């Protein structure tokens, strides 16, 4: 890996770290500002298949399948006084790693893969939830910033072991 590629990787790592911080700090409006208007935010349902048959997730059913409008609705909802699933908010910690820049056109677009581990703690419950998976992200460069235009989160469980996804992945 040459220096140029390292800097590139570093740039997107930093973007993902900043994003993680906004989500963990419950700064949803600032997080939403990172999204591109053409956003597709998707989390397919994982399936147990025989052998190595791929893809091992559904191409028709999703846990999230939002465009920018639906994602806005979720963010707005969390600000009403009735979004009980996150009252009080979960304590989350997002660990991003294994960042790989798969495609890059300077000042235009990028494709980045990364791993994500979310630790989630609710209220006084001493049990925690772990959500693990791979993010397949696409970015568009707009007004001097990288905006997320597509995210496909491939979760590592076919039965999700957290009571809901009132949090973002």
């Amino acid at each position, binding site marked *: 890996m040459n220096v140029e590629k390292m800097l590139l990787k570093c740039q997107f790592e930093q973007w993902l770290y900043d994003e993680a911080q906004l989500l963990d700090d419950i700064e949803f409006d600032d997080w939403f500002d990172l999204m591109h208007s053409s956003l597709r935010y998707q989390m397919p349902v994982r399936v147990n298949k025989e052998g190595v048959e791929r893809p091992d997730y559904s191409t028709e*059913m999703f846990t999230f399948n939002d465009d920018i409008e639906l994602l806005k*609705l979720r963010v707005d909802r969390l600000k009403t006084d*009735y979004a009980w699933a996150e009252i009080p908010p979960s304590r989350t910690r997002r660990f991003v790693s294994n960042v790989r820049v798969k495609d890059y056109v300077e000042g235009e677009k990028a494709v980045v893969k990364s791993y994500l581990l979310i630790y989630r703690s609710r209220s006084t419950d001493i049990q925690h939830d772990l959500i693990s998976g791979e993010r397949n992200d696409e970015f568009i460069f707009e007004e001097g910033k990288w905006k997320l235009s597509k995210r496909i989160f491939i979760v590592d469980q076919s039965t999700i072991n957290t009571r*809901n996804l009132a949090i973002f992945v």
Partner: protein
Amino acid sequence: MLKTEKSLEEMSKQQVVDYLNETVKPEEGVIPAYLLGDPKVYDIEHEKVFLKTWVFIGHDSEVPNKGDFMTRELAGYSLIITRDAEGEIRAFYNMCTHRGMKLCRADKGNKSLFTCPYHGFNFKNTGELVGVPLQKDIYGGNLDRSEMGLHKVKLESYKGLLFGTWNEDAEPLEELLGDIKWYLDILVGRAEMEVIGVPQRFVVNSNWKVGSDNFVGDSYHTMVTHGSIAKLGMVPNATYSKRGFQIHTDNGHGLNLGTPNPDFAFPEELKDEFKTNLSEEQYGVLSNLKNMIGNVFPNLSFLISHTKIKDQFISNTSIRMWRPIGHNKMEVIAWMLVEKNASQDWKDRSRDSFILTFSPSGIFEQDDTEVFTDITEAAQGPMPFLKNLTYNYTMGLHREPVDFIGPGVAYDDKFTEASQRNFYKYWLELMTK
């Protein structure tokens, strides 16, 4: 209330059953909290409810082609559900008859032969044992393969809904369903329906009965638990959930029917198909339907929901099972159904409205799971039993049923707990039989 020196744990099974008879009083609207938190009650439920009655296992559109199979659970035991070369659907215990290995570990697929990973015994999708490695050599030609087919599971279906039971003497499925069939026709018999993709699955630390109770008749919680939905303008107002009817039928089934609806909630172009499949009365209900939320005893809940998304109304139809995996834990399995002949645009919008509202990320569902979890937690351990903590189910006890165009006992709005009392009445009947 009856006081006892013994804890449930120390009681014999018969003593627990007697205690249930004395303390569970659905007709008076008294349901003790220990029903949601006691492992012994859970064990008796497994034996007297889940091993005895018909339990939902899937929809026939999930195995549409010859050779398709899927794996499911029935009362905690894995099943293989297959469609054979003639199109017949069967269910088998997912266990090799030689040494008991789990035969199939995939969720679904297409194949006509299942090979055991332990010794390579081969079973056809009709259940027959058709191949045993080195058979002649090692069994001396004495192995009777015809005696070693997979254990068949009793399976019956209604309008595409597949149910299984371990009870060979179970009454016919249609008898158990009884009058709820009239409403299931509207839910899944109105047109040819198909499951989109695969079901959603997630685990909630809740007793399964909290889910059934919520769907069988609780529209009262909508104004508060789902208050955010009205705030966002996706439903008319916070009290819209009262309008309509609550209906319950024999054997613990029940539903809330939200009417009227100025808009037609289903694909307009399929009106002829709906009319062909439904009676005039059923079509009348369908035309005016705002939502339909119910439960087929014990744990199959269903829903038609009509919400405004991006300034456009769209309905979605789903069924969900609250699969018990412990006295304080369940797996929610939710299937989304759509009219097979609807346009792709309708199917996509309907699916996305389902995902947005009722799925692990659903903005209705996620608030329910918070409530389910905390109710269950508060019911755990010996205290709720020792202190005789009970829930109040008396709402609407003073009311008289009304005439309704469909069968069952109907009330002329949804804010009553008659359906929940009916659910627990049948539950008690099975538990104490």
